[in-house]
């Protein structure tokens, strides 16, 4: 097993007429031995390109990638001791499942008995023993996915790379495979790098998550740290569903406390504990970030005068989810989503309620830089 380290890695596509495109910009992170790291971000953010540079399928324009202590920039994919699971499975259609699994080992001149043992073991782990003689086209999507994972397992590589492996599966299958890959990681105790655009996959699977946007790493942290302490607007808005509410307003010092007032006569007004950083923004525009689950109907919120702040709003739309209810609130200037624990019916739409905001979970962002004000 091994660790992977990326140092000042760039991917620059040279344009025909000098119009270069920087797909990956100064990426630095380290994956520890046996760690499961997820690269997440919207499509085109450079996460797949980063992974493919680790695999050796893309040339590294600048910077260095190390697997253990070895700089692998100029090492061919086959010599990096990595295995990769592809989005479209990339099974060889003209080979049986057995041959698909055995192919990489055959090329590395493993003895026949060893190949058979490893393939049988991997098939056992994945529950595909009965499919070994089939061709890929005779398999379902989930089965193909297992074979693709199996092809990586038999290699017993230093690092497993996953490139959006679940995005072609249906929703139910995706949840199941998600759990299986997590289980696989626990069982194999291997170093894994996993790329996805799905924040739920990232949150549920990763030991640590690397959030990327426009080729730049936004934040690297554990799932809960990312969720609770996002460094900027992008990370705050990307993780969580429904996503975080952002409310435009201004800060003002009032009797030693800091007061946030929603713009254009919106109903939200908060009193926050003063801190040095907040003071700098006195009289300036800021963005209030509050997650839907941190807003609740006043009558049901845990009453704690000091840590909550109340505001009235008209409920525009009611979306009963069963366990909870999504409410779209009209504050007068913004539409804000509230995830209420209270079950409301559609007919409640149009009524005015009082809502509480959990001040401990409220974040302020600098609209100019997007950074969170701490």
């Amino acid at each position: 097993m091994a660790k992977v380290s990326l140092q000042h890695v760039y991917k620059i596509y040279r344009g025909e007429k000098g119009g270069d495109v920087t797909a990956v910009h100064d990426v630095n992170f380290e994956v520890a031995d046996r760690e499961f790291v997820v690269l997440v971000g919207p499509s085109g953010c450079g996460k797949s390109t980063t992974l493919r540079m680790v695999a050796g399928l893309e040339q590294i324009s600048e910077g260095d990638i190390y697997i253990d202590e070895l700089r692998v920039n100029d090492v061919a994919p086959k010599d990096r001791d990595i295995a990769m699971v592809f989005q479209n499975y990339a099974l060889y259609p003209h080979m049986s499942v057995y041959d698909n699994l055995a192919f990489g080992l055959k090329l590395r001149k493993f003895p026949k008995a060893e190949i058979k043992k490893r393939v049988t073991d991997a098939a056992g782990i994945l529950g595909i023993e009965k499919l070994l003689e089939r061709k890929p086209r005779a398999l379902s999507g989930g089965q193909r996915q297992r074979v693709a994972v199996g092809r990586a397992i038999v290699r017993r590589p230093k690092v497993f790379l996953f490139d959006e492996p679940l995005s072609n599966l249906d929703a139910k299958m995706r949840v199941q495979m998600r759990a299986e890959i997590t289980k696989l990681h626990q069982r194999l105790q291997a170093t894994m790098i996993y790329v996805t655009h799905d924040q739920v996959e990232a949150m549920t699977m990763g030991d640590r998550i690397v959030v990327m946007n426009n080729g730049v790493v936004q934040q690297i942290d554990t799932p809960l740290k990312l969720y609770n302490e996002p460094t900027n607007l992008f990370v705050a808005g990307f993780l969580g569903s429904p996503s975080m509410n952002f409310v435009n307003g201004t800060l003002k010092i009032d009797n030693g406390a800091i007061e946030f007032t929603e713009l254009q006569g919106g109903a939200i007004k908060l009193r926050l504990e003063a801190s040095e950083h907040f003071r700098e923004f006195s009289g300036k525009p800021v963005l209030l970030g509050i997650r839907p689950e941190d807003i609740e109907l006043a009558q049901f919120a845990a009453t704690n005068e000091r840590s909550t702040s109340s505001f009235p709003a008209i409920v525009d739309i009611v979306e009963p989810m069963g366990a909870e209810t999504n409410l779209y609130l009209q504050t007068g200037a913004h539409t804000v989503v509230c995830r209420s624990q209270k079950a409301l019916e559609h007919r409640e739409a149009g009524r005015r309620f009082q809502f509480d905001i959990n001040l401990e979970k409220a974040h302020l962002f600098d609209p100019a830089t997007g950074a969170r004000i701490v």
Partner: protein
Amino acid sequence: MKRVSFYALVWLVVLWCLAPFLWQIVTSLKTNAEIAALPVTYIPRHAGLEHYDALFTRKPFARYLLNSFVISGTSTILCVGLSALAAYAVSRLRMRGSRLMLAALVVISLFPPIIFFFPLYEMMRAAGLLNHPLALIIPYTTFNLPFSIIVLATFFRGVPRDIEDAAKVDGLGRLQILWRIILPLSTPALATTAILVFIFAWNEFLFALTFMTNDRAKTITAGIATLSGTTVHETPWGPIAAAVVVSTIPLILLVAIFQRRIVQGLIAGAAKG
């Protein structure tokens, strides 16, 4: 009633397509006397194979057939092999100017053979290749390259890139990827291309007529012309009819077996053209 007339139309079209060929079969089975008898008979009175017999005993017709097979077969293998390499480069490697090259190939493939035949004749004569199979194999290979490269490149583009990447991670070199992954996956396209190249080579006339002057070196298309009698008025229609039938049988078999493939190949070639 509408249904009946529709089917009548269909069978009329089929008859129209096959009639000249069917008429050759009828003619080839007639005796010389019946061929030159009036009124024309539509069913031979004394059907016999004497013209076929004459073809193989009095003329080196077996030799023509063999030449056609050897020349068409060799050109097909060469052409498909060379095109596979080139098509892989054009479709999968980020080659600069590959689009331009494809366009140039299309233009060249549209030129009629008459443009090339004299310089090629000079070249073959200078190289001492006249009456040698290579005199036809080389041009047949060349002039079918554009078509096959285009058809194969179209197909190669359809092979998912992920599979190639997986092969790289598994440890294949680039030539191995072509040989062990792309080509096995492309057997349908290779077969389609091969069939079409074979047909084109088998049917070529102008080069065959001019480069192969020795009777034993001729291919079918040029050979049949030498069946004509001593004078213009003595055209031996019986043996010619038999020759037409024999020389077209391989093609009819190809069409019967690979109908769908041929249609796909033609469309791929034409769509890109």
